């Protein structure tokens, strides 16, 4: 009897520990084929692994073509991985049963880049919201629905009346906040914001970022924040308590760190270049060096060694031959031979010291 109880207790603790990871990406790859007659395969996402904990904000940074949109489509279930799995609350998403899939769709809500194209232009906003509520079966009675709608509108700081209005009557910033409100109606556990503020005017961006950060703190809402704009990413990291930053390049993770570490102490040469490329709002701080010019994207995807080797100022012979492993350095993990203990990097390190 006591043994049985012990077993039950142990499995319960294990469950709780596993539950801390809301989302687990395990060795996920996605291969695409390009071209009609002579097709070449390339991996848009190549062996990517990371975890997103409950209530954490994970910042996914990368330029266009790095695989971040493909990854978000894989997580949302729009695409299926060519290899590897995605686990949500400990269960593999591709093996979901019908009711598990329904819960997943409700609990993981996307917010897309273009606010205008995610709303049906012919449907009135209030009617739309009411439909969302009844679709997800959250609340039944009309008064409860109305209460819920008012609650989410409050949370996104929209104080104007939405009754009877159509999408085109609102500005871009407002519609994006309405997108967040729509996501909140489903009582989500995870928001996937894919370039959510990229198309919003700069002066309105901060307002939306503030809302997201407040929601994360208030509701313990996890957010996967995808962006190419580092200053926007930094702001989110600065405002929030539990964050993790992941940098992607051509389908692979090149650096991963918690909190502000990646911004204050970037390790990978690509991360450094990204941070250097942020234009300063102080006219006295201008860029000094010119960069190496980009090679055709597709060629970089299929490189044998490190995908960044063609653009890296510190590239060594081994970088072109073998893809680096993920090395742990203090608070970060870097995929770069410069951080390996065994490789001879004297020339490269000299260059690094000169640049610092």
């Amino acid at each position, binding site marked *: 009897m006591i043994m049985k109880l012990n077993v039950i207790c142990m499995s319960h603790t294990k469950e709780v520990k596993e539950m801390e990871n809301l989302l687990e990406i395990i060795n996920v790859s996605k291969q695409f084929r*390009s071209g*009609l*007659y002579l097709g070449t395969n390339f991996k848009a996402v190549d062996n990517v692994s990371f975890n997103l904990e409950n209530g954490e904000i994970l910042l996914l940074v990368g330029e266009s073509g790095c695989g971040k949109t493909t990854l978000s489509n894989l997580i949302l279930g729009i695409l299926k991985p060519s290899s590897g799995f995605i686990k949500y609350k400990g269960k593999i998403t591709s093996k979901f049963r019908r009711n598990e899939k329904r819960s997943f769709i409700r609990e993981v809500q996307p917010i897309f880049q273009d606010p205008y194209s995610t709303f049906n232009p012919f449907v009135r906003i209030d009617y739309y919201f009411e439909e969302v509520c009844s679709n997800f079966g959250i609340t039944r009675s009309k008064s409860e629905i109305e209460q819920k709608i008012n609650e989410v509108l409050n949370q996104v700081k929209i104080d104007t009346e939405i009754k009877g209005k159509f999408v085109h009557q609102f500005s871009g910033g407002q519609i994006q906040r309405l997108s967040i409100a729509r996501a909140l109606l489903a009582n989500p556990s995870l928001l996937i914001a894919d370039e959510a503020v990229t198309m919003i005017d700069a002066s309105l961006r901060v307002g939306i970022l503030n809302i997201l950060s407040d929601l994360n703190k208030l509701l313990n809402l996890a957010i996967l924040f995808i962006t190419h704009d580092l200053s926007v990413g930094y702001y989110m990291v600065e405002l929030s308590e539990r964050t993790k930053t992941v940098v992607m390049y051509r389908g692979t993770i090149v650096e991963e760190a918690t909190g502000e570490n990646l911004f204050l102490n970037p390790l990978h040469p690509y991360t450094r270049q990204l941070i250097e490329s942020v234009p300063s709002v102080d006219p006295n701080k201008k860029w000094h060096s010119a960069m190496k010019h980009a090679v055709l994207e597709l060629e970089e995807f299929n490189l044998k060694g490190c995908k960044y080797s063609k653009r890296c100022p510190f590239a060594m012979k081994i970088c072109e031959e073998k893809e680096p492993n993920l090395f742990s350095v203090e608070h970060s993990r870097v995929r770069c031979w410069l951080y390996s203990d065994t490789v001879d990097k004297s020339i490269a390190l000299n260059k690094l010291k000169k640049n610092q």
Partner: protein
Amino acid sequence: MVKYLVEKTVFLILTLLIGLTMIFIISRSTPIHPIDTLMQQLSAYGAQLTQQQYNSIKDTYLKLYGLNQPVISQYFSFLAGIFSGDFGPSFSAFPTPVMSLIERALPWTVGLLLTALIISWILGNLAGLLAGFFDKSNISKFFQGLFVVLSPVPYPIIALLLILFFVFMIPSFPIMGGTALNIKVNFSLSSVLSILEHAFLPALSIVISSLAGWFLTMRSLVMSIKSEDFIEFAKLRGLKKRKIIFSYVMRNVMSPQITALALNIGFIFNGALVTEYLFSYPGLGTLMYRAILTGDMNTLVGVASLSVIGITLATFIVELMIPIIDPTIRQER
């Protein structure tokens, strides 16, 4: 590349096989056995036969047409026949081989339909291109209205109206046949003129009927592309209007129209039954019509098979053509 070609060729063969087999099955499933029809025709000529004579004539017919063989071997000889271009003898025009009947009729159909198709394609697309580009002009609006009204008009009405006007009311064109009865078909001037004279009305009826379709699709394609960024940028760079219409607009919308043209060429082998009936034109359509009336199974099978082969080949060629029409796909590696 090779993989793609092999894939498409396999599909081609499979489609042909399935299509031809279906023709075979359908032809062998008719409730009325064609030999019985033949026998009935005999009695219609007033022949009086005893049961024995009836049976022996029937047996002879069955042997002649190979219909006494088991179905499977009939099937294989059918397929073999297709390869060698032999559909067997015609039932109603015995012993003329079906193939020579087809050979006689085919040039009329192809000549008529091909010409009409190409003329209506060129005119329709050109008019649609200009109408779409200058969509605010009154002429464009006029033609738009005209073709919208014209397009639902059933083809027989157009054909009959033409006949009414140009054969009866203002007798300017002959009503029937491929040429005048006394002209031999060769390349002499009188022969050619006669052919043209007889082909004019049927071709005109087809052109009028199909012009609307090409015009309307082209026009809407052009109008949807007019607002694209690269057209705007071309205007801002001061490029001449003519350059924009042809290099920018036309080149970007031609692809679906060329595909449609190729497919329509395939459909030519269907024959234009209604046209040839109304104008008594000696093409495949008339051949098929008569074959149906007389229960001529071999001819029917022959013409239907030709149709299947023509359309399947046309589709196959279209799929190969795509990278030629769209050079951007060609280059993608």
